[in-house]
């Protein structure tokens, strides 16, 4: 009996040691997710707007997250006097910067700002265009035409680790159209990836559910980004004591 209890006790001790050892590691790696708001869009748009978007990022020096996003979108807007169709593929490249301080090695929640460059290649057409005046009615159409658009984005958002390696987050996107194909008949009012162009500054929200592949592990906490000017020497001596000299983030450490 004593032997059995001793064995269980030793097992618990080993397992607890193992758990505490795991908690000392900070896991990092590429994150792949998809945009949940694509499934909500049809409920809030006058036309039928469907699509998908995959997003991915990878940490760089702790607080930087180079990001790539790719997606497709279909828009079918059937109004009383016209029927507009557009569809296309788009991609965005950019980087996010975490501006929040990580409280511990386990803390993976992000508060970030970032920039994006976006490009979309899409087609648009319109048919059943109905117009009436003194001289009668006309029913015309505008044939399918390939278009492209370039734009920039300033993003702000959050990502929280709800479960181990599983993140949920939102991003607010202020968009700035740069260049687009000029169609003398229809200025596209929805561009895949850019969204509605009718506002002065188009903006959008995206909701992302993502999974992080814990490929790298480290015992080093990324040094928080300093906002503002330099402080008095030694003002943050106690605060910075948890970071290694120079605040360098070593992804290979502890491999």
């Amino acid at each position: 009996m004593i032997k059995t209890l001793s064995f269980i006790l030793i097992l618990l001790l080993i397992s607890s040691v193992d758990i505490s050892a795991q908690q000392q590691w900070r896991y990092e790696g590429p994150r792949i997710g998809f945009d949940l708001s694509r499934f909500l869009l049809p409920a809030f748009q006058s036309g039928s707007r469907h699509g998908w978007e995959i997003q991915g990022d990878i940490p760089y020096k702790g607080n930087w997250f180079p990001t790539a996003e790719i997606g497709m979108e279909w828009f079918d807007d059937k109004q009383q006097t016209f029927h507009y169709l557009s569809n296309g593929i788009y991609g965005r490249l950019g980087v996010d910067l975490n501006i929040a301080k990580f409280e511990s090695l386990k803390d993976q929640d992000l508060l970030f700002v970032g920039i994006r460059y976006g490009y979309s290649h899409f087609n648009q057409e319109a048919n059943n265009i109905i117009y009436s005046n003194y001289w009668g009615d006309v029913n015309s159409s505008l044939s399918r035409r390939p278009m492209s658009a370039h734009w920039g984005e300033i993003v702000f958002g959050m990502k929280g680790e709800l479960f181990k390696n599983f993140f949920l987050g939102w991003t607010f996107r202020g968009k700035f159209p740069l260049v687009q194909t000029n169609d003398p008949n229809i200025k596209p009012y929805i561009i895949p990836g850019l969204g509605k162009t009718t506002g002065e500054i188009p903006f959008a929200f995206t909701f992302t559910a993502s999974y992080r592949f814990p490929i790298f592990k480290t015992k080093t906490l990324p040094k928080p980004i300093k906002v503002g000017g330099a402080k008095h020497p030694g003002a943050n001596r106690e605060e910075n004591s948890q970071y290694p000299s120079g605040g360098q983030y070593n992804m290979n450490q502890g491999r």
Partner: protein
Amino acid sequence: MKYLLTLLTACLLILTGCDEQNRCYESVNTQIVITLKSSDFSIYHGLIIHGVDRNATGDTLVNDTLSSQSKRFTLPLSVSADSTGFVLTIANVKDTLYFHHQMSMQFISESCGFAPKYTIDGTSYHTGIDSVRILDPVVNTKSIEKNTNDQNVIIYFNPASH
């Protein structure tokens, strides 16, 4: 978990931000702006305009009984043909004027739909009209917003023939 409340707040922001504008606030009325002047700057009395082959009571486009040296008005152009004809009755004398044009449909907005846009290529008319001067060949929904001293076309007619 500490972000859940923020996430929910963002959800509400999305719901409120997705309100659609379904009202049309822009004009889809495309009309050519014309000024009719007498060649010798004399005053003429009365002007009636209707479309060619549109002689029914309700087909009159302009019925101006005032006396004037110059009158300014707007007229709709055909959406199905490449020329539009009008019969102008000035002091009980009829003249016929044709506008030759190209038309394409132009998108205005999601709420308003499309409206025609014309390019005037030329005109033809009978002898009662001296000349027609095209100042702005592009006729679109913005044309009717032109200033009172601005127009697409000026028509000069000869009062002696009326």
